[in-house]
C-alpha cells in the first residue's frame, strides 16, 4: 500500500492506494502519527485508490479512530470503492467513523457539527 499526504484547510488527507492489509500497518501508522504531530484537527482517510481492505486493516482504522478521539482529532473515511464500501458496511464501521463521498462533504459535516 502507498500513502501520500496532503494538507488542506481544516485537516490532513491521507491518500491510500493499493491493498490495505496487515503489511501496510507501519506505513499507515506512520502517516497517522505524522498528521497528529502536525496537530491535525481532522484526518481524512481517502480510500478511493484502495482496491481491497481486509480485517487487519479494519482494526487499524478502528485503533486510529480511538486514538484520534483521545487527541481531539476527527477522522473520516472518504470515497471507498464498492468492494471496500461493502466490507465497511458489513462491519458497521459508519457507526464509528463517518464515511463520505468526497473530502468537501467531510469538511462540511465538521462545520455543521
Amino acid at each position: 500500500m502507498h500513502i501520500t499526504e496532503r494538507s488542506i484547510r481544516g485537516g490532513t488527507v491521507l491518500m491510500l492506494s493499493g491493498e490495505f492489509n496487515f503489511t501496510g500497518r507501519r506505513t499507515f501508522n506512520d502517516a497517522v502519527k505524522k498528521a497528529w504531530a502536525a496537530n491535525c484537527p481532522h484526518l481524512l482517510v481517502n480510500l478511493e485508490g484502495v482496491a481491497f481492505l481486509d480485517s487487519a486493516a479494519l482494526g487499524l482504522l478502528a485503533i486510529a479512530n480511538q486514538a484520534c478521539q483521545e487527541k481531539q482529532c476527527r477522522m473520516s473515511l472518504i470515497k471507498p470503492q464498492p468492494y471496500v464500501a461493502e466490507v465497511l458496511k458489513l462491519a458497521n464501521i459508519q457507526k464509528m467513523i463517518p464515511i463520505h463521498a468526497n473530502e468537501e462533504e467531510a469538511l462540511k459535516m465538521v462545520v455543521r457539527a
Partner: protein
Amino acid sequence: MAIMNHPVPEGARAPVGLPAGIESSSAVAILVVDDEPVSRAALALKLERRGYRVLQAGDGREGLTIARCEHPDVIISDWMMPEMDGIAFCDAVKADGALRVIYFILLTVHDQPEQIVEGFNHGADDFIGKTASTPEVIARVRAGLRARAMMRQLERTHQDLADSHELLVQKQEMMEMDLRSASRFVRSLLPKEGQLVPGVHLAWEYLPSLVLGGDLFGAVPWGDDCLGLYILDASGHGASAALRAASLVTFLRADALPQQVGPRETGKIMAALNHLFPLSEAGEYFTVWIGSLHLPTRELCFSTAGHSGSVLVRKDGRMDHLFQPALPVGFGSGTSYPAKRVTLQAGDRVILPSDGLYEVPSPNGERWGLTRFMQTVLDSCDRPLVQSIKEVIVQARCWQEHHRFADDAALVGLEFE
C-alpha cells in the same frame, strides 16, 4: 624418522608484513620432504633462518606419518622419491580430511606444462623449482600461508554457518513442535462432525493459512433445550490470533456467559464479549456470529458482530442472510448487538463461513465475494451437507486457482431434519 626441530639461529630474520590471520613465523610449521639429505637440509636451513619451525622427512611415506602427527601448515615435497613419490604423497595428503587444507608445494626439476598440470590435477597447490632462489622459496611459502589463512577463515566461517544453521534448525523444530501441539489443542476445541443432537447434523471444513489460525467455531449444548452455535474470526493469523480465539471461546462454554446472561440472549452474550475483549493496542479484534437454537421450537436466535456471510438455506431453495449490522467485538465500548429470530424447518441448512473463504482473490485480484459465495452455497444445496460444504471449498479454490488459502478459512454447515 627424521623429525627435527631446529632452534632458530641467532640473527635469523622473521618474515615482515605477515598478512592478518597468519601466525607468526615461529608458530608456522613447514614439512620438507626430500630423499636427498643435502638438498633437504639446505632448504630447511633457508626456512629456519626465516624463523619457521621445520620438520623433515626422507620420502612420502615418512612425510605422511609426520604430517598426521604434526599437522604442518605447509609441505614442500620433492617430486621424485623412493617408496612414495611426491605425487602419491600429495594424493594421500589431499585424500585425508584432516590434512587436505595443508598448502602443498611440489619441489621439482619438472617445469614442463604437462607435468605442472599433472601436479595440479593431483591436488598440489604450487611448485618450486629445485634451483629456486631463497627469496622465491620464501615468497612462495608466504603466499601459501596467505592462502591457508584464507582457507582457515573460510573453514571457520563455514563452521560458524553450519553451527548457526544447526541451532536454527533445532529452534525451528522446537517452534514447529509447539505450534503442532497448539494446533492439536485448537482442533480439539472444534466440534465433532455428524449428528450433534437428534435431528441436527454438522459438517465443516477448517483451513488455517498457517499451522494455527484465528478462526474457531463450535456447537455446544447451552442447557437442556438450547444448542449454542458460533463462529468467530480473530483478526490476524498465526499463534497470536489462535490464542485470542481460544481465549474467547472459553466464555462461550455452557457454564460461562450463556449461563450468566441466559442462553437465548445472544445480543447480551455478544455485548459481554465486547466488554471482555476491547480492541488491542495493535488493533486486534474479533468478528463473531452467535446463534442459540431452541430445540423444542427450532427457533434460532442470533446476533452478529461484524461477521457476515452466514446464511439460512431453506429446503425450497430460498436463502436468508443471517446478518445484523453491528460493530466487531472490541470496536466500541457500549455497542449494542441486536438479536434476530428465525424458525427453522425440516431440511433447512445454516451455513457459517469465515471471511477468509469468500474474500479469496482471483489471480487478477478480483475477490470471490459474498454474492458468488452465496450463489455457490445455493447451487450445491441439493447435495448431502458434507458434499455441499466440500463443493463450496472447491469453488473457492477454483476462483483463486490455488489450493492453499492466504487467510484462515472455515465453513460450517448445519442441517435440520
